[in-house]
């Protein structure tokens, strides 16, 4: 086992250390610590390249199942539960490492230009470096605890980065929203891990997968719940329906953050988790087993594909369009995993990272250079294709990939998923898939049209008419070019059409399930055939055509009856409104859930605390006191003195009641004295004789 495989832990460690350095000394550095961040990411990139290389070599050398390359140290142990920390390298991990390191490097390079002169330049790089570190930590986690560690670190960084400009309340709100939504999902992760521990008595991912695949567990039912719980976490993290609402708001952060967040890190974490623990989900949820009615993962994925795509239509903010497109692409990945297309789904993670990152960076480039930092397509963009050739080219390449035009990367990954859905006879999801493809093409066409075609508006107008205005500087364009070209070619790693299955061979051992045969088996990926892809492609073409026509009609020159249709036609307006309000899910969460908890419920609880609980103690004490007093105390001052006042007042009450006895009159005292004596004597005499 090679040096890189053994020392894979260095990959997250380097940026981790870099983070510390930036935080502590960043401010004093010439370039505010950004150089450290970039350097560390480069280092990580090199390391992970090495790792990937050695892994591939490892696979090619051996002919049977390839065991994952583990190097672990004991983190801590409690009784017979040992928790390790270290690295667990297999195909999946290697791919992700490479991907994350690569994208992060480019994004950092891009950022050095993009956020130059920002009020918190250093903070930004510190956070984004830690962010990558978190993702890397999670990707090569050998056990659930380390995975959770990385998972949460990302959550923290997303909070910091989305709320980077926290002076505006909106941003900090968005940051909170992101953190909370994800946190809600994390509940599932925590409980899920607890369940896994209860089932398998270990937290090592490898062991869990084996046991699950081999059916070595006693409580199938609990495993099902574990899978559900974990999946909830994935829903939160990967912005699946119904917890997708935080993703668009996450656009509040700087564009590089969005691109990083939405391409390779953070949001794919959920998908990654499912892929990572595939046996658990597969077995727990009985996926691809004959007679299975309800496939939770596929259903959620499918829904997400459609609703997100739908939302993408009505956005004017280019980043929001991309955000929703991300959501719907994540839906594809989930759906792919759900219908058993493990390889395709993971491959889609891989390709999607490139073109989505590219798209975001393009958007950033546009707003940075052309539209005065505005992202509003309708107000400040249009007709930029001439002035920004590089950006435009990159954008087009990425869009093509996203839409899955033949022979670009999206085609090989997304259509694989759709095929598998059909192949593993999930008719519904097949339909969903192709419809999704149609919608994708449609909204991307719209976005492209609004941004690069038509006549320049607002900010863009100035730019276009400015003679010596040029495309963005190299720190921005270089990443664009690289990513754009990768968007085109990366697909050939796994091109069934040419019988190229490198990616598959490298990663399939990570599925953790035997392929094809046996009850807990993952289905084989289907053979490629033009017939099965034809309908999809047809719909893509249709989407392009329709959308183009609509755009020309609605946004283009010349008046057309369609313009402003959504204002006039009731049905359309209703639908439009519904979409603009994101199916009212946000309303539900914010108005009902959050406000609910934050205000009435907690208030009620607090009131209870102050009045009932303290009050009970108090009421016990109040004893003989007049109820009027009680009411007064209850309603008037919340802070009722509990035990203290309570006993105090009883006491005073009782004491007061007793004082008359102390009348000061000798005879009375005498009477009392003798009376007591007589009574006592009498009773005792009667008792004792």
């Amino acid at each position, binding site marked *: 086992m090679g040096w890189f495989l053994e020392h894979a832990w260095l990959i997250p460690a380097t940026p981790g250390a870099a983070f510390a350095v930036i935080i502590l000394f960043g401010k004093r550095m010439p370039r505010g610590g950004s150089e450290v961040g970039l350097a560390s990411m480069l280092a990580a990139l090199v390391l992970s390249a090495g790792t990937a290389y050695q892994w591939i070599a490892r696979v090619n050398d051996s002919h049977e199942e390839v065991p994952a390359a583990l190097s672990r140290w004991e983190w801590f142990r409690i009784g017979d539960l040992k928790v390790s920390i270290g690295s667990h390298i297999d195909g999946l991990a290697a791919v992700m490492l490479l991907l994350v390191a690569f994208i992060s490097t480019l994004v950092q390079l891009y950022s050095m230009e993009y956020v130059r002169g920002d009020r918190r330049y250093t903070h930004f790089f510190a956070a984004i470096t830690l962010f990558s570190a978190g993702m890397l930590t999670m990707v090569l986690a050998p056990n659930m605890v380390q995975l959770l560690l990385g998972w949460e670190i990302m959550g923290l960084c997303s909070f910091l980065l989305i709320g980077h400009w926290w002076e505006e309340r909106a941003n900090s709100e968005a940051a909170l929203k992101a953190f909370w939504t994800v946190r809600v999902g994390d509940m599932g992760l925590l409980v899920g891990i607890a369940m896994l521990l209860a089932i398998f008595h270990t937290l090592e991912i490898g062991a869990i997968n084996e046991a699950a695949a081999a059916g070595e567990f006693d409580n199938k039912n609990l495993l099902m719940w574990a899978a559900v719980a974990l999946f909830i976490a994935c829903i939160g993290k990967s912005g699946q329906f119904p917890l997708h609402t935080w993703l668009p708001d996450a656009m509040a952060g700087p564009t590089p953050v969005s691109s990083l967040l939405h391409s390779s890190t953070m949001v794919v974490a959920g998908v990654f988790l499912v892929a990572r623990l595939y046996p658990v989900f597969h077995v727990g949820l009985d996926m691809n087993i004959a007679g299975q009615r309800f496939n939770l993962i596929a259903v959620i994925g499918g829904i997400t594909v459609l609703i997100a795509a739908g939302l993408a239509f009505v956005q004017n903010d280019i980043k929001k369009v991309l955000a929703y497109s991300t959501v719907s692409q994540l839906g594809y990945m989930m759906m792919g995993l759900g219908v058993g297309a493990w390889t395709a789904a993971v491959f889609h993670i891989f390709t999607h990272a490139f073109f989505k990152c590219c798209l975001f960076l393009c958007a950033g480039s546009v707003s940075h250079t052309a539209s005065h930092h505005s992202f509003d397509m309708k107000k400040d963009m249009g007709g930029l294709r001439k002035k920004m050739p590089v950006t435009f080219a990159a954008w087009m390449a990425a869009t093509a990939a996203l839409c899955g035009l033949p022979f670009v990367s999206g085609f090989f990954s997304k259509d694989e998923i759709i095929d598998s859905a059909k192949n593993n006879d999930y008719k519904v999801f097949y339909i969903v898939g192709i419809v999704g493809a149609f919608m994708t093409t449609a909204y991307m066409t719209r976005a492209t049209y609004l941004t690069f075609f038509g006549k320049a508006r607002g900010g863009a107008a100035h730019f276009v008419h400015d003679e010596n205005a040029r495309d963005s500087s190299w720190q921005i364009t270089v990443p664009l070019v690289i990513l754009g070209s990768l968007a085109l070619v990366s697909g050939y790693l796994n091109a069934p059409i040419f019988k190229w299955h490198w990616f598959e061979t490298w990663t399939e051992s990570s599925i953790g399930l035997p392929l094809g045969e046996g009850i807990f088996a993952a289905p084989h990926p289907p053979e490629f055939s033009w017939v099965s892809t034809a309908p999809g492609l047809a719909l893509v073409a249709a989407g392009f055509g329709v959308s183009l026509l609509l755009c020309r009609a609605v946004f283009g020159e010349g008046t057309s009856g369609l313009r402003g249709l959504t204002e006039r036609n009731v049905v359309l307006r209703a639908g439009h409104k519904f979409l603009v309000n994101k199916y009212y899910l946000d309303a539900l969460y914010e108005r009902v859930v959050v406000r609910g908890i934050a205000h009435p419920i907690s208030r009620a609880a607090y009131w209870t605390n102050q009045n009932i609980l303290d009050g009970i103690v108090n009421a016990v004490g109040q004893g003989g006191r007049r109820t009027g007093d009680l009411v007064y105390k209850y309603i008037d001052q919340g802070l009722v003195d509990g035990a203290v006042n309570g006993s105090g007042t009883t006491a005073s009450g009782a004491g007061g009641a007793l*004082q008359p006895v*102390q*009348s*000061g*009159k*000798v*005879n009375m005292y*005498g*009477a009392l004295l*003798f009376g007591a004596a007589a009574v006592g004597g009498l009773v005792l005499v009667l008792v004792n004789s």
Partner: protein
Amino acid sequence: MLINEFLLLGAVLFCIGVYGVIARKNAVLVLMSIELILNSVNINLLAFDRLHAVDTAGGNDGSVFALYIIAVAAAEVGVGLAMVLLIFRNRKTISLDDLSEMKG
């Protein structure tokens, strides 16, 4: 011997004394009632003394006790009267009801 009669007498005296202590407002009368009780005690003691002198070999503790009581009672009364005088000097009354400055 007729022990019970003696005891009865003692009891009656005791009760009268107690009644006096409780009912009388006049300090001196209260003192006197207390003397009554003491005497009832003495009667008891002497009666028992005789009784035991007859049936047990116990010494004559009773009569000794009685003597002590008489002596001590004298001392008590001395102090008592002194105090009555004291309050009379300060308040020109010996009614106990007026002795209730301190209460509660």
